[in-house]
Structure formats: C-alpha cells, structure tokens
C-alpha cells in the first residue's frame, strides 16, 4: 500500500512537468489536484450490514486538448474503519482510481468513458476489488464568474467483483461546487459522491464521500 501511495504522489508531483511537455506539443490545458474525502462505506456481504468510514486522499490530473477532448486520471488511497459491529471488524485500506477519456459535446456537457476501480484490502484476506467500465456525463453551470456547480452521473457497462468472483453492476453520481480563482491558477471543489456496486451473488457495497479538493492549473 505504501508503495502505491508513493507512486500516486509521485505521479501527482510529476504532473506539472508532464504538463509542460504536453503544452509544448499541442494546445493542452492541464490541471492537477489533491483532495481529501470522508468516505462512508456500507457493505452487505450477505444478510449482515457493515458501516465503515475514514479518510481517503486522492490525486487527480485532467488534461484538455483543444475545446473537445479531455482525459482524467484519479488515484486515491485511504483507510476506513468499522463504525458498527462488536467486536469491530478489521480495518480496511481503500485504493481507488479511474482513467477516463471524455468528449465535450457542449461547453457545459462532457461525456466520458473508461475504467473505474475500487479495492478493499484487508490483512490476511485477498483483496476485494470492484472494477467497472463505465460511461459518464458531466454537466456544469456557471453561478458566478469562476464559480460553477457540477453534476456527474455514471453507469457501469460491465463490471466484476473479485471476491466472491463474479460479474457486477453499478452506478453513481457526484455533485458539488467548483471555484476557480480569476487571477491565479488555483481552484477548489466541494463535492458529494455516492456510488453503489452490486454483485450478482448478492454482495452490495455503497460508498458515500464528501470531498474537498484543491487544484492547480500549470497550463492554461
């Protein structure tokens, strides 16, 4: 886990350097950000219910080429502990990430496609990973100059669960507020996210997250 975290932060830190190179090649806009999220994970592995919560830190990078093409990469890692149950179930590490390619059909609407994964790591057990290939739509609307609200909906085309192994379905949404400073290449985002994965065998996991993200736009 620590290795993955190092890799993530290394990627986030190397993004500006990569952005400079991209900008030199074409009309790219690159934005990077780091967020902290309070995640609440509700699991129903069978008839029981478990609720865990904890902090997850995420790094992201968004590259836009021209006015239409956009790519987004997110990687996050954290830990959730049980809020219910006696004795409490062991804590879980959470690793999640996505790699999406998008197309702006309108200035305010972007359609995405790409993989999206979340893995729960418990010591002594094999990892439990949800993997979805999803399609997404993100709509944005300006409230003030530099202030936008956004709403993103996604639905998995296909998905798998590693333990118990089987196919899965899922979907989710995210909404919130984004602020871009006018004269500085900084931005911030307040968001609420909820997603649910459902395996054919019955297990179901729902993740809520309250995120606060700050970002930097090295290239514009």
């Amino acid at each position, binding site marked *: 886990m620590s290795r993955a975290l190092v890799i993530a932060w290394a990627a986030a830190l190397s993004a500006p350097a990569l952005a400079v190179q991209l900008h030199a090649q074409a009309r790219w806009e690159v934005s990077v950000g780091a967020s902290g999220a309070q995640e609440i994970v509700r699991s129903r592995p069978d008839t029981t219910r478990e609720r865990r919560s904890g902090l997850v830190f995420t790094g992201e990078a968004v590259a836009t080429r021209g006015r239409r093409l956009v790519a987004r990469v997110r990687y996050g890692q954290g830990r959730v502990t049980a809020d219910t149950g006696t004795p409490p179930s062991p804590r879980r590490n959470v690793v999640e990430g996505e790699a999406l390619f998008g197309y702006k059909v309108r200035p305010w609407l972007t359609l995405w496609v790409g993989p999206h994964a979340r893995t729960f790591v418990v010591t002594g057990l094999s990892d439990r990973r949800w993997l979805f290939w999803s399609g997404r739509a993100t709509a944005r609307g300006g409230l003030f100059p530099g202030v936008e609200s956004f709403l993103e909906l996604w639905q998995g085309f296909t998905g798998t669960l590693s333990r118990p192994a089987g196919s899965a379905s899922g979907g989710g949404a995210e909404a919130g507020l984004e602020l871009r400073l006018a004269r500085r290449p900084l931005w911030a985002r307040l968001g*609420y996210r909820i997603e649910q994965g459902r395996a054919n065998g019955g297990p179901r996991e729902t993740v809520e997250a309250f995120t606060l993200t700050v970002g930097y736009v090295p290239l514009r």
Partner: protein
Amino acid sequence: MDPHRPETDRRMKRALPLLAALWLAALAAPPAAPAQTAAAALAQGVRAYDDLEFDAAAGLLRRALAAEGAAALPPADAARALIYLAATEFLRERPDSARAVARRLVLANPRFRPDELVFPPQVLTFYEEVRRTTPAVIARAPADTAIRPGTEALAVRLYASTFHDVTATLATEDGRVVRNLYTGPISDSLDLHWNGLDSTGTGSPPNGRYAITVTSRDRGRRVVRILRLPLEVVQGRVDTLPYPAPPADSLLLPERQPLGPALRVLAPGAIAGLAIAVLPSVVARNEDASGARFAVGGTVTIVGIVAFLSHHPGRSIPGNAAHNQTLRDAWRREVAEVARRNAERARGMVGIRAGAPVLLTPEGP
C-alpha cells in the same frame, strides 16, 4: 386659244358649291332676330328722345326693355335704355315713374353714371339723388378658382351705389353662418376676402353649396337690400403622409433586469443541490444516505440563490430607460411633425365656383 382658260374653269367649278351652300343658308336663316328688334326699338327710342318726342320715346324704350331671354338687351344696352327712359319720364314730368326706372338702373348697375354731355343737368341731379337713396351692392367674383385655405383667399369685389353699411357673411344654403367676412361701411367698392376656413379658423367647411350674403342697410339700420352670391366649395384630394412606426423592439434596451440570466444561474445551483438531496435514493436504493449531504447540497443551492439575487431581476436599468426614452421621444416628435404636415395637407386646395349673384329687396323695388 387662251392659256388661262382651263384654270379659270377650275376656279369656277370650286366656287359653285360654295355659292350654293351660302344660298341655302340664307334661305334657312330666321327672318329677323328678336335682339335686333329690341336694339332697333332702343335706337328708335333714343332718336325719339333726341327729337323731344317723349311719348314715342317712352313707348319704344319700354318695348326695348320688355324683351326677355335671348331677345333681351345686353346689360350695357339695357342700362342705356333705362337711363333714357328715366330721363324721358322725368322730362314728361312723371317723377314717380322716373324714380322707379332710375332705381331699377341703380340696382342693376350701381356703378352706372349718366353721360353728362347727353343728359341735362336736372336729369343728372335727379339720377344722382335716386342713386344716393338706393343703397345696393353688386359683386364680382372669379367664376372658378382654387385656394389653399389659411394661406390664400378668395377675393370678391363689391361695388356700391352709394356710401352705406354692409354686413357680409358666408352661410350655408339653409342660412347657417359659416364665417363672418365683413361688417362696416362701403363707399365705392370693397374687397371681401375669404381664406377658405370656417369660423373656428382650423379647417375648411365640408363640400357643399354656400353663399356670400351681403346685407345693405340704410341710415336707419334697416335692411334694404340683400345680395346673395352662390358658391360651391369642393375639397381637393388630400394625400397624407404615413405615420412613422414606433421604435422596433430590437432597438429598445431592456428597462429592467431580465429574469432569464438570473434563472440561468439559479438553475445549475438548484439542480445540483436537489440532485445531492435525491440521488442517494436513485443510485443506492434501500440505503440510509448520510444526512451530511444536505450541508453540501444546501451550500450549492444557497450559492445558486445568491447568484440569482446578484442579477437583481426586475430592477430598473436607468441607462437603458433613458436610452429608450430618447428613442420614444424622437418617435413622438416625428409623429407630431407628420400630424402637423398632414393637417397642413388636409387644408389642401379648395375649389370654389361662384354662381350668378342675386339681389333681393325685402321692401320691394
């Protein structure tokens, strides 16, 4: 052989039909025109007067004046016959008859003056006395004219027999006065002017028949004569200018902050806030979503409401209102100008046809 003979024959052949036509016309002509008879009677009467045969002169002159219609004497000859008849009756010592004939002459032609070389002084004095005691006017007006009401005028010249007071009005056929033209004295002549407007001075009277009535009064203010000059008034066709269209909406700026932009910033905030509230029930049914999401959704919604209010929907925009007022004022000025010019055109040319004047004497001749 005469070389000119053929040419002479041709001329004769051309003249024969012309001579025949003249002969036929002479056969078809009346034996003697009545006017010639009246004129002959006048000439014989004048000769009889010159020969001091007053009885014969009176008869011949009365016969000359008795002719009517096409046989009547022309005005100048009628006046000549009347003055000779008046002088004849005066010299026959028939003053009443002489006075009646002289008055008839005064009324027919107030400007008539007997020839001082023809008639003796006592006749001239007698006629002058009759003329002074017979107030009357005649009118001369163009038979057909056109004026622009308000700026031009119809001129009617009045000729008076003697100094007296007159009142001139323009009236309808039924006697309703349209405009007073003159009230005051007249000596020898007077020009009446009518500018084509009614008594209000704003517009022309409608098409129709009217009359200029000149009432003559004696020294006792009694109406002794009324001259009536018929007029027919015809309005000319008026082409008015179209009124300018009001300023187009595309030129006017919104005078109040529109609601649309405010709603466009409210909607994203409200939709995102609402989505945060309801999405858990859509995405994750049968799960108890955290109530903390309402804090995020409420924040987004509040920011949207603040953005909505920041646009001040419905608040007036003084600059735009002033701009629109300038446009509207300019349009109103144009409308007023067109209205003024149309009013001028509405007082366009008016045609006036004058008829034959009629002189009425309420008290009898």
